[in-house]
């Protein structure tokens, strides 16, 4: 079974530039999550989708971050414009609907904002 795929793996941008990250979840997983992990901290949920609807985006900085999940499969997370404090690893995870426990994570995208 293929795991969660993410791209790119690394990205370096200047502040005020835009960036987008892509995630392809495990086939059949209806729930998709984007997390931000700042160095030395645990992953923090940014947004959660169930199919292509948003379940929770309470911690998403909506003035600069946006995310979509078209057709309930792939998802894109965008930052526009980026700030220095956005430097982090952005993790995508997926899980089966109705399963409260196991989330499967992708390898993450390490973003550096200069």
């Amino acid at each position, binding site marked *: 079974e293929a795991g969660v795929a993410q791209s790119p793996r690394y990205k370096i941008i200047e502040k005020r530039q835009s960036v987008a990250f892509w995630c392809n979840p495990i086939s059949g997983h209806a729930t998709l999550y984007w997390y931000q992990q700042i160095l030395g*901290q*645990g992953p923090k949920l940014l947004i*959660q989708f*169930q199919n292509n609807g948003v379940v929770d985006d309470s911690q998403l900085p909506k003035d600069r971050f946006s995310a979509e999940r078209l057709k309930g499969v792939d998802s894109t997370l965008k930052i526009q414009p980026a700030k220095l404090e956005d430097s982090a690893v952005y993790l995508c*995870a997926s899980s089966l609907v109705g399963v*409260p426990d196991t989330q499967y994570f992708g*390898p993450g995208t390490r973003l550096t904002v200069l």
Partner: protein
Amino acid sequence: DQQVKQNSPSLSVQEGRISILNCDYTNSMFDYFLWYKKYPAEGPTFLISISSIKDKNEDGRFTVFLNKSAKHLSLHIVPSQPGDSAVYFCAAGRSNFGNEKLTFGTGTRLTIIP
């Protein structure tokens, strides 16, 4: 408000001995708990979980203990092996259907000394 706390940022254990990683939580609504393991440049990998109806769950060398009255859980690894060297995250959530949000601790870096 840090609802899930891992107070030890690092831990070193001799190979073959027991590793004990601790986690405390403050939200009494949490009813399921998980441990994830993370290697550098990879996403977190699910290790073991426990629901609040149990006080112990075992899977091979890994055992998780839950003390609900103390709002404390621990992960025991016996015997510890060099491949166990990684960062371990404790996570907690509520098992309401459609509300599968996890709150992560800050992680404990475990180093197994050969």
